[in-house]
């Protein structure tokens, strides 16, 4: 893609985001139900009431790689989950395979606890780097799930095939498992092993479904609008090519 076209697309995204954010105050968006996000609230409540922990995984990808976006979406979810579990005897535990993501997770936890006046409950060991390689990360999860009394496991980040194992370990521990990744083969594997798999861009939709702000809802509307434009462009190009009007 040429730099000029890239700049135009970027500008379109920014204008749509800001436009839908402004429109959202007057006309709130209605989204289709996603069973995983619908069940997430009650799973967190059950964990808090039972004195169990909620585990949030930010995946095995690196913050400095192109796979950072789902982990950033996971951090948005973490902000809300940490707030809701801050008064629990056992607050949320966060894991990642990258040191930089762990630092961001610690900041997110600290900020969430401070917001609800529970800053003294923050422990820097609540956000952990489990292991630097994907399968070593998956191998350490069963011990964490068993020893920390985890009853809800939210896997939102960049996972490869190890994500399927991570989701299955959660199921074996009788946990609620919500799992999503940006990797298509990993999504297919998670569909089989996770209780609530997130398909396609659903991994980025958590912020809008948990009502984290106007720009989160605007993001989904922007994605839908650009997707519609892309579909029309693809159909028009296919028709023109079929009719022999373009080379």
């Amino acid at each position, binding site marked *: 893609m040429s*730099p000029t076209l890239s700049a135009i697309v*970027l500008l379109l*995204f920014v204008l749509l*985001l800001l436009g839908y954010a402004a429109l959202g105050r007057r006309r709130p968006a209605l989204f289709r139900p996603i069973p995983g996000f619908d069940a997430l609230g009650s799973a967190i409540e059950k964990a808090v009431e039972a004195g169990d922990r909620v585990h949030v995984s930010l995946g095995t990808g690196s913050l*400095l790689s192109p796979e950072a*976006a*789902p982990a*950033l979406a996971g*951090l*948005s979810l973490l*902000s809300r989950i940490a707030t809701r579990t801050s008064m629990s005897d056992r607050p949320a535990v966060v894991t990642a395979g*990258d*040191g*930089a993501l*762990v*630092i*961001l997770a610690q*900041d*997110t936890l*600290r*900020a*969430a606890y401070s*917001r609800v006046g529970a800053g003294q409950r923050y422990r820097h*060991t609540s*956000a*952990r*780097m*489990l292991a*630097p390689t994907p*399968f*070593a990360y*998956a*191998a350490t999860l069963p*011990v964490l799930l*068993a*020893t920390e009394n985890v009853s809800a496991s939210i896997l939102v980040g960049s996972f490869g095939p*190890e994500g*399927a*194992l991570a989701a*299955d370990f959660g199921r074996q521990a009788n946990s609620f498992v919500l799992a999503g990744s*940006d990797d*298509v083969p990993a*999504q297919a*594997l998670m*569909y*089989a*092993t996770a*209780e609530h798999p997130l*398909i*396609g*861009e659903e*991994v*980025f939709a958590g912020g809008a479904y948990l009502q984290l702000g106007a*720009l*989160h809802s605007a*993001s989904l509307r*922007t*994605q839908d609008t*650009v*997707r519609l434009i892309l579909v029309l462009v693809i159909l028009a190009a296919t028709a023109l090519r079929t009719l022999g009007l373009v080379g």
Partner: protein
Amino acid sequence: MKLGAYLLWTPVAVAAGWTVLLGYLLDDAVNPLADFRLLLLRWAVWIAAGAVLIGLLNLLAVHWSKISLLEPGWPYSALVLLFFLTTLVLGIVFGTNYPIVSMLFQYVQLPVEASLMGLLAITLVLAGVRLMMRRRQLTSAIFLAVALLVLLGTGPWLIGNGSALQEAVVVGQRWITQVFAAGGARGIVIGIALGAITTGLRVLLASDRPYAD
């Protein structure tokens, strides 16, 4: 987060993000911030290396805390610390090409990770069976039927290899993987790309601030 820190970090993060992004859109010859962008990217590499070290220190701190408080599972943490420190000392003293360090990777790390790949195959078979019991939906049935057809069409058959039935299965498998699956995967990838762009833009617009809230 104190108000002062919040006011400092947000503009720094947003300015750095936009500077790097605009560097991809503007030619370096006309971009007055080209050198600054390269400097930021070099810093990012250094910071990432520092973050790996911080991550390892975090790993040590977590396991040390479990051992000192004798929390459930502390023997596992003791083993992690023992092998972590052993590998670290050997690597620092003798270098990463030292035979014992190479052997640790070749005969411990690699087989463990390979065995987990094997475990994944078994997990998927069991998960496929459980899927029909857990989610009795049309999509689950289609998922399993397609998985079975693709498996049958990919490898040789013990009985009936080269038969008309196998030919039909192979043709069906190719149709599914090259037409439906490839088309569907492209659609999913487009959706993921759109989601990734909007997620990144929220950070650049300071709506999401994982670094300072």
